[in-house]
């Protein structure tokens, strides 16, 4: 099956980013939510209320569905630029075992 998202330009330098225990090569400086989608991640988190899966919805910092945990704080992936370094995880609440 072809991936859900296609990247039009492939030129950017890629850096290793740890997400949910796996290492992904993402374009440096890219929007993190977009880069994760393009890398094939669909489920960003599970809700603390019902455990339902969620992914990016608005891509403009308004809906808070693309939450990920970076350095111990839960933040919006769509408001973060990709950089090498921080360990990114699915937020710690209501997280069943889930692979990419």
């Amino acid at each position, binding site marked *: 099956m072809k991936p*859900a*998202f*296609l990247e039009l330009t492939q030129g950017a330098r890629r850096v290793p980013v740890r997400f949910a225990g796996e290492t992904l090569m993402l374009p440096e400086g890219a929007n993190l939510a977009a880069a994760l989608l393009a890398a094939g991640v669909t*489920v960003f988190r599970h809700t603390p209320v019902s455990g339902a899966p969620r992914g*990016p919805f608005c*891509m403009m910092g*308004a809906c808070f569905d693309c939450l990920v945990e970076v350095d111990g704080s839960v933040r919006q992936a769509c408001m973060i630029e990709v950089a090498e370094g921080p360990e990114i995880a699915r937020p710690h609440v209501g997280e069943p075992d889930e692979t990419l």
Partner: protein
Amino acid sequence: MRHYDLAILGAGPAGMAAAATAAEAGLSVCVLDEQPHAGGQIYRDVERVAALRGDILGKDYTRGATLTAGLRHAAITHLSGAVVWAIEHAFRISFTQGGAAAQIAAERVLLATGALERPMPLPGWTLPGVMTAGAGQILLKQSGVLAQSAVLVGSGPLLYLIAAQMVRAGVPPVAMVETQTLDDLIRAARHLGGALRGWRYLLKGARMLAEITSARVPRHTGATGIAIAGESRAEAVTFTSKGRAHRIPCDTVFLHHGVVPNTQAARSLGVSHIWDRAQSCFVPSVDDWGQSDVAGVFIAGDSAGIGGANVAESAGRMTALKVAEELGRLSATERDRQAAPLRSARNKDLAARPFLDRAYPPHAAAVAPDDATVICRCEEVTAGDIRRYAALGCLGPNQAKAFGRAGMGPCQGRYCGLSVSVILAQANGLTPDATGYYRIRPPIKPVTLGELASLE
């Protein structure tokens, strides 16, 4: 704390245009914007992207670069990546930038916070893979990331724009599931006269439709009973159109049935809002200059009522002239002289609105969703829950919020507030004005306790 004549929230067309005009008039200006680069959502990241994908995104996008260039003025401080979480009177603005909290002070505040997608609660709309059409466009603009198997659901010009851009990028949508009906178009026709004054908009619409049609993208109109199917992600869109049931498999669903003003900041300052029947949303009470009913608080662009980028630009400049006059940098005569052409440009750009509002009304099934449909995405409260709270005496959204947590999550009601107010109004037989809206308080965006405490 640095002090400015004018603080502007948002670096979209209204904010950028206002900043440039205000600086030109001699005001010190601080533009606070959440994004790392200026442009707002309409011109998102335009300085970097225009060269990469300008051909796909079109001139209406690349022209934004003239506005971003205007921010490079000695009197303008552009704070990018600055997330404002409190605006207090007379005016103290608290924000977080790069993980640190900071504050500025300002004589006047201009809220140019733009629009949000109108919430479109349909069965399955919380599944991963379901996004707003705006999100799809942002992915394309900023990141060059394109959905390979997308169905576009809803109605309105933005839906056609993203479809046309996908066609140009060589990855057309799988199908368009459109909710507007022939009746809507007939009702809209009596506003065609006004719309002809804004003929450029209609021509653009026709061109986009031609692009979509020539790419043989299937269009299903008058769709009802729309739902997104899937277990842990979107797998298909199901609906009925022209008496036939359809199921279209896909990975991605882009929803859109219009945009509405982002009123969070204005409401947190106590600006009063009224229900706009034509646009089916709350709009802040502002005068011709964008002055709200709270002293010193101005609102321009889509956050004052949906008008689009060009209207926002004119309105932002007009507000800047008004503030410059109030702060003694411009005479009233000079203000009016400079404002006259802006006002007539704005009015001309607004001429097509009544036609568009009626041709592409909100999708009825998303305005009055089934009981089982989730309304509040954060707290997973359903339309049926809200109706039950109405039966328990909840006349407005604040009591309903206390009863069932709708609007208590991190999005702070941005994607449920309108639905909750309208559902309560329907259930109680009241108007949206009498029903009201959530009381919005700081933090208007979440802030860590550590950042908050650092200002102690």
